[in-house]
């Protein structure tokens, strides 16, 4: 049984992070994957495409990734969640799963507001002892106020 201190985190909404989707950041992301798609790197090609500008690979919402980056970018909500769960004995983390739903393409120059919410926290028995699963849902809104994507990420604490 997870202590109430942990379960009462369900429903908590984190701070909104505003990310500018820069073409250089898109290029470095595509380079890191090893994806030569000209939509992500060739401005002339992208302009003539139906997108009209450099496209961001689906799943890239601007730098830095607001959920994973530690240090100054580590969002207060995630720190609080991991700290409280650590007090129950789960101090090590792994990235368990991700689901992205996409509604509109994101292009270079877009400004994306990302807002996370803790959807669920539950405990499960694993091969190497109990694990805690934290499900975070993030909504991504563009500069025109449109919902462009949703992410559902499962963080594992063990």
């Amino acid at each position, binding site marked *: 049984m997870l202590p109430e201190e942990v379960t009462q985190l369900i429903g908590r909404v984190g701070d909104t992070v505003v990310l500018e989707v820069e073409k250089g950041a898109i290029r470095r*992301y595509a380079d890191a994957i090893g994806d030569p798609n000209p*939509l992500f790197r060739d401005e002339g090609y992208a302009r003539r495409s139906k997108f009209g500008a450099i496209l961001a690979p689906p799943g890239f919402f601007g730098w830095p990734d607001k959920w994973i980056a530690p240090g100054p970018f580590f969002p207060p909500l995630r720190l609080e969640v991991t700290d409280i769960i650590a007090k129950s004995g789960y101090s090590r983390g792994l990235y368990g*799963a*991700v689901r992205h739903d996409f509604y509109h*393409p994101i292009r270079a120059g877009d400004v994306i507001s990302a807002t996370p919410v803790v959807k669920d926290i539950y405990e499960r028995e694993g091969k190497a002892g109990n694990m805690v699963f934290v499900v975070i849902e993030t909504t991504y809104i563009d500069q025109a106020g449109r919902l462009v994507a949703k992410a559902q990420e499962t963080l594992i604490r063990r």
Partner: protein
Amino acid sequence: MPGKQLYWEDVLIGSELPALAKVATTQMLVKWAGAIGDFNPLHYDETFAATEGVGQVIVHGPLKRAWLVQMVMDWMGEEGFLKMLSCQFRAMDYPRRMRDFFDPQPGETWRCRGRVTKKYLETGAHCVDCDIWIENGRGEVTTPGLATVVLPSKERRGPAPGQQSG
């Protein structure tokens, strides 16, 4: 690279997506860490990785997700729209070490694969569902997932969902 445009009518249930081969290296993990701003030592510090109980530095889950996105985008073509992609990180993948500045040591090659499971119309959109997955060098699935794409139809050449002007 995206190939010839795929149309909904040409997709066969049970057919496989062209596989995408990938070699994860320690160098690739460094590039990825910088590209997304993920400086978790789990992906570059052997001692830290051992303390965390994963043995050695592991490939970032989101990098594996990005490989799957590349495979699906290449297959569906530029007029297609990726509506949904999900995956689970079921097993660790360990990058190859670098032999020199440019090339990795011999070792594992990963394969991103997929198979069409369903074709249907949803509010006028021509949708295709796929099972997708990554196999490690021993052919074991470390990263299973699902994808849904919207494809252009030969019958109704309207704009794909998600398309907009400007």
